[in-house]
């Protein structure tokens, strides 16, 4: 986590691409330089070697025809007019007989047939160490002829290659990585602004748009496309919201009039009227209809996630305890023991009203389906999988094959057809779970009954609000 935080650049795709590219570039530059070095040296050496070979051929001719004295004479002659050419004729004990080299070379390296050595030569009145390349030619009677060429210029050139190469590679790496970092930072900034905007939109602020840099590059094109998409989504959401509102308004207004009229009739009736009970029953039916309609509307709205006004940081543990407390007398009246171990503080971000209603629905269901003398256990706690609120009862439970169905709207199982309820209770719980990015998990309670778990993601956890920390 710490390494990730301190080197965010390393994680960007841009920087990785630049890194690979720079390494490849540095490698190929080094290879190119190495090849040029090798090839230049080979060509120059071949030229030098040809000259030396030609000289040796000529001098060996002289040796064969004129003997040692003739050879010494020729060497002496040539030494005087030599430019690059170097000669040394010695006897078996390395005593100089003729040539423009004063001594037998001290250090010699022998690549193939040819040797390379350093020698001293006066240049502009100063002695200078210079590099030469030549070949030794053994004569009969232990005499040795050394024919060489001064290759100091080539030597300097090739040495330049070997010293420049590491610097060049280092410079390429340095500039490449620096440039890469700069590029990726720029890219990261652009991506960050897109990420920040989408984060705010996910949090419910649909009016946000990705800012454009104005450069008309591919990021701007991406941002423009995203913004167009967001415009569309916002329009759809607004449309949905308007539909919900007008459905609500257009159905509630006549329902309101209907209820008003029924109440009016009820207030004007005389106790002796035979149909006075009928009016009360009609009002009760109307209220049931209204209740179902309200629940449906709430589920639709929650499912669509169009509402974000009521999001606050709340203590889930405390809310669970409150709901348990609300239902405790009812459980006692039905001789059901409502068990709730103390809850820890679980601060999450959520809609208080929706969560309270979901919790109440779960507990309400559990009490409704648990027979007398049964037991309902409510627990809450944070685990590795998420933050769980568990309501377990000792009722008949729900067969595994029916579980996916019971969260659908209006689904009521055969066994519960005759008990009161709209068949929307669990649908609402599921919608509230969905709204909060949570899950509603139904499983068997041991030994029997239903275990309903409302599992919020760990990412919903928040630091408790300062107010309650100060208390």
């Amino acid at each position, binding site marked *: 986590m710490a390494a990730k935080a301190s080197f965010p650049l390393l994680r960007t795709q841009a920087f990785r691409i630049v890194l690979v590219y720079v390494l490849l570039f540095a490698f190929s530059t080094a290879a190119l330089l190495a090849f040029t070095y090798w090839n230049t040296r080979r060509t120059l050496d071949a030229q030098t070697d040809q000259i030396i070979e030609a000289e040796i051929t000529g001098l060996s001719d002289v040796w064969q025809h004129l003997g040692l004295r003739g050879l010494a004479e020729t060497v002496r002659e040539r030494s005087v007019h030599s430019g690059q050419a170097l000669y040394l004729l010695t006897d078996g004990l390395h005593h100089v007989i003729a040539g423009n080299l004063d001594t037998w070379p001290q250090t010699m390296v022998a690549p193939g047939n040819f040797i390379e050595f350093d020698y001293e030569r006066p240049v502009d009145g100063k002695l200078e160490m210079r590099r030469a390349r030549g070949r030794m030619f053994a004569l009969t009677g232990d005499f040795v002829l050394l024919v060489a060429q001064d290759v100091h210029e080539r030597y300097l050139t090739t040495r330049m290659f070997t010293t420049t190469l590491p610097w060049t590679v280092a410079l390429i790496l340095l500039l490449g990585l620096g440039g890469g970092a700069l590029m990726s930072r720029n890219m990261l900034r652009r991506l960050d602004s897109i990420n920040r905007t989408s984060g705010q939109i996910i949090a419910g602020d649909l009016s946000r748009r990705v800012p454009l840099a104005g450069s008309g590059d591919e990021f701007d094109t991406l941002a423009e496309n995203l913004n167009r998409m967001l415009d569309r989504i916002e329009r759809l959401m607004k449309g949905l919201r308007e539909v919900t509102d007008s459905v609500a308004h257009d159905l509630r*207004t006549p329902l*309101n009039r209907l209820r008003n009229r029924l109440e009016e009739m009820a207030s004007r009736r005389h106790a002796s009227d035979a149909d006075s009970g009928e009016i009360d029953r009609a009002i009760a039916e*109307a209220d049931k209809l209204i209740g179902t309609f*309200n629940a449906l509307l*709430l589920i639709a709205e929650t499912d669509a996630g169009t509402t974000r*006004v*009521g999001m606050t940081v709340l203590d889930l543990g405390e809310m669970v305890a409150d709901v348990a407390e609300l239902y405790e007398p009812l459980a006692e009246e039905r001789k059901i023991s409502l068990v709730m171990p103390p809850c820890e503080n679980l601060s999450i971000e959520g809609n208080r009203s929706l969560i309270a209603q979901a919790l109440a629905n779960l507990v309400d269901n559990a009490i409704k389906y648990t027979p007398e003398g049964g037991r309902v256990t409510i627990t809450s706690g944070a685990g590795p999988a998420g933050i769980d609120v568990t309501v377990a009862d000792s009722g008949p439970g729900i067969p595994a094959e029916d579980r996916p169905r019971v969260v659908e709207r209006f689904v009521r199982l055969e066994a519960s057809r005759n008990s009161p309820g709209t068949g929307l209770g669990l649908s609402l719980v599921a919608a509230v779970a969905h709204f909060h990015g949570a899950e509603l998990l139904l499983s068997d309670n041991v030994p029997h009954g239903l275990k309903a778990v409302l599992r919020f993601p760990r990412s919903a956890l928040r630091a408790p609000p300062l107010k309650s920390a100060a208390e």
Partner: protein
Amino acid sequence: MRILVIEDDLEAQRYLVQGLKESGHVVDDAADGETGLSLALSRPYDVAIVDRMLPKKDGLAVVAEMREHSNQVPVLFLSALSEVDDRVKGLKAGGDDYLTKPYAFVELLARIDALMRRRTPTGIRTRLDVGDLELDLLTRAAKRSGTEIELQPREFRLLEYLMRHAGQVVTRTMLLESVWEYHFDPQTNVIDVHISRLRAKIDKGFEAPLLHTVRGAGYMIRAH
């Protein structure tokens, strides 16, 4: 009491005005936001009932402007919109209470009574009395005829709310909203069970019951 009704659904308005008049209130009515606002700003009212969606000027805007003009008349919003955000919006705009249509008239009446009662401050009270029942808000102790009554914290709040509205009808929804802070309708009537528990504590063994059930409406605590 003078009540202003701003409601554009004339059928609903007629019913509301008639019901309020029958309950002994003086009622003015307006069918759009602008008329409603000018009435609210020109005459003294004890309470205003404002529909959330109104022609010419939206209900939220009417109340927001009333508050801008330092008009502190308690406002009850009536709304036919979907509920989740709307309650929050209504209260933010300066509303004091919120009721979703369709509503029961008794519920509306009880809430108006509570709003008007809130308007006449009785000073900071440290003790509430109803008959021989006393509630000390500082020591959080309840006594009836001098006998101490043990109350759970929530029972205390429930009794306190009922006694603050002594002589008034208090509906189940009102109790759920103010004592439990829940704005939804539990499927099973849990409030009734809480009330019967409370009743067992304060009325059991006494000749005259204080906590009464008002049929079809809710509960009321009163001495006689």
